[in-house]
Structure formats: C-alpha cells, structure tokens
C-alpha cells in the first residue's frame, strides 16, 4: 500500500502510458495560436512522367485528384503550359499546384508586359522554382508538390525535377510518386540503350509506363494528358485512356 502511494505521487503529473507528453520547458505550446505550417496534403495527384526525345520533351500525368483513397476529381489537369518553350506537371497537393500555377502565370504576364522580347527559359524557371520550394521548406511551410519541368530552348531539351524539400535535378527521364518505382526503370532501360528517341518512340514509352501505373498504382486513373514541347511550341493533348489487358485473370483461380 505504501509503495503504491509513493509511486502514485511520483507519477501524479506525468503521462499515462502511451499518451503524448509535452515535456516541461519546451517552447512550442500545442494549441496556442494558429498553426503556420502545412501539415497535410488534401486533394492530391499521383505520378508525373517526363521523357526527353530528339527535338523536344514530353510530360504526362493522369487527370485524377484523390481525396485520400477516394477518386474524387476525375477530370482535373495537372499539366500546364508556362510559355512557348516550357511545360510543367505537378503531383502532390492540388491546391498548392493551383497556387503555383497562379503565381507562374502572373510572372509570365508580367514578363510579357516588360516587352523586351525575353521569355523565361526552362532552366531559369527550374532554378527559380527550386529556390521557392527550398525557401518554403526552410520556413516549414512547404508547397506539397513534386514538379516536373520540361522545355526546349536554343535547340536543347530540358527536363528537371523539383520537390517539396527543394531537391532538384535534371535527367533524361523523370518520374514522381509511384512512377519513380515502376516507370523510371522502364524508361531508363529504353533510354540507356537508345538515348536518342524519336517523338513517336517517346510517346510509346510514356503510354507503356502509364499503363503499368494504372495496373499497379491504387491512386491512379485511366484518363491522362500528354504535353509536348518542341521547337514549334507547346501542345497539350488529351484526355486519353490506356488499353488494358486483363487476360491473365482467366488463368487464375483460387489462391493456391
């Protein structure tokens, strides 16, 4: 009895087992004042794929906005034209993408108003975006997106990646989300043996990857758009659907 009492006194203001405990002397008080950091993404987009080809760059994304596991918005575009030489695709939070889109579109308008004939190059856009995303992450209020930026400028193709941490790089093929695991190996396999793809070959590769992603990514949707940028400008085509083959279903019965 005495032991019990003493232990209860020691434990009087402590945490119950399993409960979250705020250690005394910690600076942040949970629940005082508004939270000033993005905590969770709400409506999200899944993979974005990008591939360089001879004469340009191609980017693809499906048209789904998922609300957790719910396929809530089935006709939203996650690809945008920045200017005549740059395209952008985003995965992650759709509200943050819409904000980014608004900011970028305004930037492009402002630049047009300057009237000096200059336009943002894909590299410049990529560099700017990297700074923005990194700065937001440092302020602990990220734009919860992974962005694929493609462009064709001065006869050269550009394909870059920036994510919510400010991680940025360029590569001949890029895939975000699930695509990084499923599509990137397929793309690299083709591009390592044949680095110079034609536009049609790039299209076929992308469509093959999109099909695999539809088979295996539970947050994907069989409706996608493809954006292409070449010397001639930007083209965003869609919506398309993949032809799926379920023949193997007939070969399976039971689970043994």
């Amino acid at each position, binding site marked *: 009895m005495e032991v019990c009492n003493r232990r209860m006194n020691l434990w009087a203001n402590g945490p119950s087992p399993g409960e979250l405990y705020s250690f005394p002397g910690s600076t942040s008080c949970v629940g005082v004042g*508004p*939270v*000033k*950091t*993005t*905590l969770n*993404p*709400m*409506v999200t987009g899944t993979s974005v794929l990008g591939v360089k080809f001879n004469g340009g760059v191609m980017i693809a994304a499906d048209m789904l*906005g998922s*609300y957790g596991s*719910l396929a*809530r*918005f089935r006709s*939203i575009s996650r690809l945008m034209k920045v200017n005549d030489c740059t395209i952008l695709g985003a995965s992650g*939070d*759709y*509200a943050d993408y*819409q*904000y980014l889109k608004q900011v970028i579109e305004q930037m492009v308008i402002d630049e047009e108003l300057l009237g000096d004939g200059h336009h943002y190059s894909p590299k410049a856009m990529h560099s700017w975006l990297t700074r923005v995303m990194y700065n937001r992450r440092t302020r602990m209020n990220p734009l919860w997106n992974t962005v694929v930026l493609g462009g064709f400028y001065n006869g050269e193709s550009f394909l870059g990646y920036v994510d919510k941490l400010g991680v940025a790089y360029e590569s001949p093929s890029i895939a975000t989300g699930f695509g990084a695991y499923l599509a990137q190996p397929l793309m690299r396999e083709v591009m390592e043996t044949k680095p110079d793809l034609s536009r049609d070959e790039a299209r076929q590769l992308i469509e093959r990857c999109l099909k695999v992603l539809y088979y295996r990514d539970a947050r994907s949707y069989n409706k996608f758009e493809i954006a292409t940028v070449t010397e001639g400008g930007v083209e965003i085509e869609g919506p398309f659907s993949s032809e799926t083959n379920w023949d193997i279903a007939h070969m399976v019965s039971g689970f043994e």
Partner: protein
Amino acid sequence: MAVEFDGGVVIGADSRTTTGAYIANRVTDKLTFIHDHIFCCRSGSAADTQAIADVVNYQLSFHSIELDEPPLVQTAANLFKELCYRYREDLTAGIIVAGWDKRKGGQVYTVPMGGMIVRQSFSIGGSGSTYIYGYVDSSYKPGMTKEECLEFTANAISLAMERDGSSGGVIRLAAITEAGVERKVILGSELPRFTVS
C-alpha cells in the same frame, strides 16, 4: 450538393448540425445566401463556414456595388478559395458555390478542404456524401431539366441522410435561375423512400 442545368443550378442539403453525437440543430439551413443569384452549401465546421460565408458575403456585396453589376459566380467561388487556401491549416470547411450569372449561366464550383477550386457539372460534399458517390455516378445524366435535377438532388440527399448518422432532418432545396431563387423544404413523410423495411 449542387447540380448545373441549362439556365441555372439546383442546390440541396440536409438540416442536421451535430456536436459529437448530439444534434445541436435539427432544422439548420446550410444553403447560405451570398448574393441574389449566388448561394453556397456549407459542410465541415459550422463556425468556420459561417465566418467564411460572412466575409465573402461582405466582399462580394462591396465588389458588386463597385462594378454596378451582379457579380459572377466564379468571382464568389474564387473569394471562397482565397480564404480557404490561405487559412487552410486553421479551417475545416468544404464549400460548394453555386449560382447563375449572365456570362456563363448556371455554374457549380467546389472548394474542398485544402483550398483548391474546380468547376463541376455537379458536386457533392459533407460527411454523408461518401455514401452516395455510387448513386450520383450511376444516376447523373448530362442535360437534365430543372425538375429532374430537383428529383436527383432530393433522392441523393435522402439516401445520404438514411445512412449517415451526421446527416438528417429535412431536405432543403433551392433552384437558382435568372428569375431568382425558389426555395423548397421536404420533410418527414414526403422524403424520398428507398428501403422496404
């Protein structure tokens, strides 16, 4: 819930507000006036959505006076979006903005939690909406008349009220057209019924 048709929109909602399991208000009006031809359907925290609606109501009324013209539905929807996106960490609000304007006719814009905005031909929201995705996906046809839209909305909300504990009471409907707003309430025995038992 809100549905577009040629010439306007139909909006509908249940009338239950809960604090946990207690029904704080069983005759709530979740269809909120924003402007003469623009309404919003509120879901999520009642306090948050009422506060947001009040702000947008003020902003839009001011804007309309400046313009000396009825405001656009898209404008109202974007005002909601600005608030819902900026304060996304502090709000629990899922709002559907619907109305009629001269430029684009009947329009439905949905601003879910997180603060994105998208126009849809019809939109459902709130806790009860999860139970009726199947129903609306199978029953919706483009090009419905106003009466068909009213029936579609009433059926959908009735089904949601049946299954969702946080939904119930009466069905409030409104049809917004160039002519104005027609409000209706469906209660008790008049509710569309589906189950036999």
